[in-house]
């Protein structure tokens, strides 16, 4: 009888150990900071053709992946992550920059645009209310004070470093025309970005023109006001400065 109880005790201890090991393993593997963040200090306005190219190449070497097209950083924060791009908008939805399959996915650029030449860029990333996902940080922009201190976001490509200013923050549930990247005229383009600005949940006091290059960061909203919506995308929309 005693031996049987001892066996049960050892089994219980073994199960506890496995559970604890599983938790640690879980945290270690799926914490976004563990695989996503990169440690690099990128300067502005460097007149050296190889400077930005070397930075991107270094990132590609780090992840052993040539899909690294740029680096995204939110100013006044330590958020600095690689921007991936594939031939569709699905691959990096569930693959890390290391090409490993993961529900965490990556921060990635819309397959239709060119990070250096396109006037309009769209970048996507996962968000969750339970886990620290790659674009969970965007939920901070519901707070206008946070916006006031972090209104500039930069994108570094292999040729330059582009700085953007936020002009609209809102959650889209039904009109997905923000995905549109083709416009027949400057006036149509201006109408488009003015519409995006008009939906902002707070006034950013930014004036737009048809010459503006814009950047849209998209993740799923976990805001309780949109709990009952099937599609609820948090959009942070910026213009290049």
């Amino acid at each position: 009888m005693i031996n049987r109880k001892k066996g049960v005790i050892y089994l219980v201890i073994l199960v506890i150990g496995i559970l604890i090991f599983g938790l640690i393993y879980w945290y270690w593997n799926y914490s976004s900071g563990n695989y996503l963040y990169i440690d690099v200090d990128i300067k502005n306005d460097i007149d050296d053709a190889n400077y930005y190219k070397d930075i991107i190449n270094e990132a590609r070497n780090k992840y052993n992946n040539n899909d690294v097209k740029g680096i995204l950083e939110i100013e006044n924060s330590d958020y600095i992550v690689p921007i991936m791009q594939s031939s569709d908008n699905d691959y990096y939805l569930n693959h890390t920059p290391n090409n490993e399959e993961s529900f965490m996915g990556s921060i990635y650029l819309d397959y239709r645009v060119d990070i250096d030449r396109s006037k309009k860029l769209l970048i996507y990333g996962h968000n969750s209310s339970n886990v620290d996902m790659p674009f969970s940080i965007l939920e901070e922009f519901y707070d206008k004070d946070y916006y006031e201190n972090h209104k500039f976001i930069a994108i570094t490509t292999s040729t330059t470093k582009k700085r953007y200013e936020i002009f609209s923050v809102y959650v889209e549930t039904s009109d997905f025309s923000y995905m549109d990247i083709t416009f027949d005229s400057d006036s149509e383009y201006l109408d488009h970005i003015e519409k995006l600005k008009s939906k902002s949940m707070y006034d950013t006091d930014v004036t737009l023109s048809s010459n503006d290059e814009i950047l849209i960061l998209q993740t799923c909203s976990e805001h309780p006001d949109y709990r009952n919506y099937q599609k609820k995308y948090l959009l942070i929309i910026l213009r290049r400065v």
Partner: protein
Amino acid sequence: MKKFKLFIFTLLICMVLPKNIMALEKDFCSVFDKGNEVVDVNAVNDYENVLIQRVNDLNENNGKGYLVTYRYSYDMNINKVTDEEKTNIENIKVEDNFNSYDDALAYYNNIVVQLPFVKGGYKISTLDIPVVTTEESGSIECNSLDCSNEIEQLNKKLSDNQQLNYSIVPVQVEGTEKEYVVYKVNDEVVLFNTMEEANEFANTYVPTLNGYSFVVNTINPISVTNKVNKTYKDLIGNNVFDTYDEAVSKLNEFNANYDVTSKKIISIRDESKDIIDSDVLTFNTMEEVNEWISENKLSSDEGILETEITSEKEKYDESTISGEFSSQALAENYLEQLKNDGYVVSNGKITQVSDGITGQVLSGKSFPSASEYVFATDNTNFILIKQGSGHFAVWTEKPLTDDEKNLFVESYNTVNSGNNKFDGSTTNINISEITWIDGYKSFDLSDLGNNWGVYEFTSDGENIILSCDSSKVSHVIRGFAQEDIKYVVSGTKYKERDVYKVKYNKVIYGYKYEIDATALVDEITTKYQISSEFVKMENASKLNYSIDTSYINTVYKLEYTKYVPVIKEMASIDWVIIRCEYPYGNGDVNNYDGNGNGNNSDYPNPPQTGFDMNLSMIIYVLFGGILLISYKACKLIRNN
């Protein structure tokens, strides 16, 4: 123990839950219906509207399930395809028959239709055609009028599928009786002048004679005598004569021998017999000219006189003029007197020349013994030769008179004296010691003594040259004496008068004489007549026949189609209706726009960046389980 079992149960549920249950939008959706439809590309929107209507109806009428809300959406995948529609189809039957299937197919393959038509399909069929071919045919002249023997012979040659077709034609054949008919017009025999003319006609002339068959035309020559006019030339020969009398004599002779019908003598110009006189005559007056022209004038038959009259000056009484005058004035007066006398002086000039020395010596100079002396005429007009002692020779161009000789000796002694003496051995010479020589020639003075020789004087125009034996000369003095001057007049004198020159060309025509006469004479000529040969025709029969063979020939007929292809653009629509399940209370059912996930805009749907999992619940369960197990484990250890 119950809590422990609950924990283990919860843990197992969490472990067996499908991994993808955490993705909200995917796990509750499934294909409700799907299909494919090919429609005109312009009808895609209409078809999509049908799908939208169906989705709306489903959302409205079938939106509620057991414990869940159904939401329907659709998606379409459109592939554009092209389809060819055949229009203006034409079915064409080829008229030609082909001997084989391959021939018909090759014909079809080579057919080129004009755009916009293109070739369609083809059909090759067979056709049996009965064919009758003639193996043999011909005509036979029968021995009898009914040709029965000939028909029987042909029938014997026939095989099973052959048939004899024939007809008997009554014909006429040539017999043996012949008839000859001479070609006539209006009952007169037609005679042709030449064999060629007769031949030409006979070759085309086909005469007829009732009951006879024409055989051939033959040409027969016939001699015919006619009176014809012949000319003197034709009958005698030469009819041209040099003189008129000769022509008259010949014509009379012709008239006596022939039946002359016409006669005359014609004068014919003969240029070879023309007399031509050309010259230039000089007349003093125009009247003399006109008189000469009048005398030599010719009629147009006689000939022609061509004249050219010019007026000019003529020289006469022309002679050279010469004269010597002691002064220039006298010479000029002479020339003036000639002009006053009506002369024209040509090349008249007055020349001043020396008339010899006067004897008055003016200067002198001595030269030693030499074989040749050359002295300029400017300072030398006499030469004194000294040889031996006591005698001299003095040369001048012209001989001196005695007075001039005396003057010469006197003045020589005067000049050759005192301080101006130019030769010491010839001072005070005496005229008796001097031998006087003159002129340009050779002088033999050996008579003067053994020491004298021959001395030759010549002139080159500017110098006097003395040549001699130097041993015959002691020394020589050349000197200049005063000269006499005379004026010589030279030139030509003549007188002038007006005259008329007549340059004429006189041609007196020459003639020959031609007899132009004709006379009637008999002429025998050969004519040609045409005789046509005929042969009499007799009745007979002719059998025309053919042997025909019958068989069936199979040929191939070709039919094909052509059409105008119209390429239509079609859309192949793969459609699917998705049904998603949501627990009651979730999903924006009220605001659903009816399009679901279907997106017909030019941009894709946003990536599904939402992520949800009941991780907190799992963690809570795990920690709760750990705490529970720890509690049980501690309790178990303590109890033991």
